[in-house]
């Protein structure tokens, strides 16, 4: 009888440790803890080029995460990309003339949407559009322009 009791205890410990391991993975390792469904409202912004932006990319203002990208679509009429941003409801006092720009975290990091607050008295609400946007900087384009420009300057200096 004693024997089965220790066995019971050990099996119980085993299963409990497995559950603890799973909890550890879920809460400490994955993004589940930051994944609590927060109330949010949707705002759209049009970009000439949304670069490497992805669904679930962060939306931040002044470096603080205030929401995430919920969808990215191509508009066949204007040839622009329509990005829907879900902004957490607690940040409901962003001015209407807020600027949205796509930045890259670090030189090679992932891209995110940065919101710069404007000065308007009326606020963004569910369904409103951000009018002033700045596209992602495509590194290849920028390098290409730089090279082109420096070659041109060199040619002019030779003359």
């Amino acid at each position, binding site marked *: 009888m004693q024997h*089965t009791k220790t066995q019971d205890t050990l099996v119980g410990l085993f299963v409990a440790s497995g559950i603890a391991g799973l909890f550890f993975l879920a809460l400490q*390792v994955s993004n589940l803890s930051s994944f609590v469904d927060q109330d949010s409202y949707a705002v759209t912004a049009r970009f000439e080029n949304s670069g490497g932006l992805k669904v679930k990319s962060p939306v931040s203002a002044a470096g603080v995460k205030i929401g995430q990208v919920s969808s990215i679509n191509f508009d066949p009429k204007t040839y622009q990309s329509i990005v829907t941003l879900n902004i957490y409801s607690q940040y409901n006092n962003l001015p209407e003339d807020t600027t949205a720009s796509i930045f890259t975290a670090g030189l090679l990091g992932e891209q995110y949407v940065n919101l710069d607050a404007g000065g308007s008295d009326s606020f963004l609400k569910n369904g409103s559009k951000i009018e002033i946007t700045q596209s992602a900087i495509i590194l290849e384009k920028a390098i290409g322009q730089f090279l082109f420009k420096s070659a041109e300057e060199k040619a002019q200096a030779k003359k």
Partner: protein
Amino acid sequence: MIELLQFLGKATRKSFKKLGRATFFLLEIISGIASVIPRPRLLLKQLYSVGVLSFLIIVISGIFVGMVLGLQGYYTLSDFGAEETLGVMVAASLVRELGPVVSALLFAGRAGSALTAEIGLMKATEQLSGMEMMAVDPIKRIISPRFLAGLISMPILSALFSAVGIIGGQLVGSGLLGVDEGAYWSQMQANIDFEGDIVNGILKSLVFGFVASWIALFEGYDAIPTSEGVSRATTRTVVNSAFSILGLDFLLTALMFGDN
């Protein structure tokens, strides 16, 4: 030439026959599971011998695999100045691949071979036929509890392996090599997805547990009832389990992580 063809034909016929036997055996096991539920003590005993006794080897291997990942990852990542992403690398490789696969391989070696030997010996010493004489179904009494125990233990062992490995990687990474501890965890949390990575890893380990226990039990039940037959069956268990686990891992990875 004809002999070669005959040999090939015979080998194919035999392996198909074996596959058929294994499938029917699996169906019997699954229908036997229903009769395990009213007798949890049988299951508990097997959980002890299959799961608890594999605990130590899994935890120790997990720590060392995690520490090696931390070292190797650090050397490679520091070339690019990306040491901070060490946590992501360690956690992603453990949770997605190494956790389920290595723990399943260890499980096949530690618990699978023991199951095959046990059942093979039961068959060789005619305990199984003895049970049948007493109108006790050996599948329900012996095989199904062991199968269920393997199925339950495998995800637990794999989750433990990954968790311990991540801690091991952190010990080496931030304790020994000076990666910032906050960056280790926060980068990991930002990049490891619960559904995409962890749940898929657990699903993988469930599949591996299913296959490894099925192979182990079938090889034991199908063994030639001599000492040589049992030893061969044990070898086959380890070899076949390793092959199926690695092959299935490729398939599952292609299915789960292929579309992004």
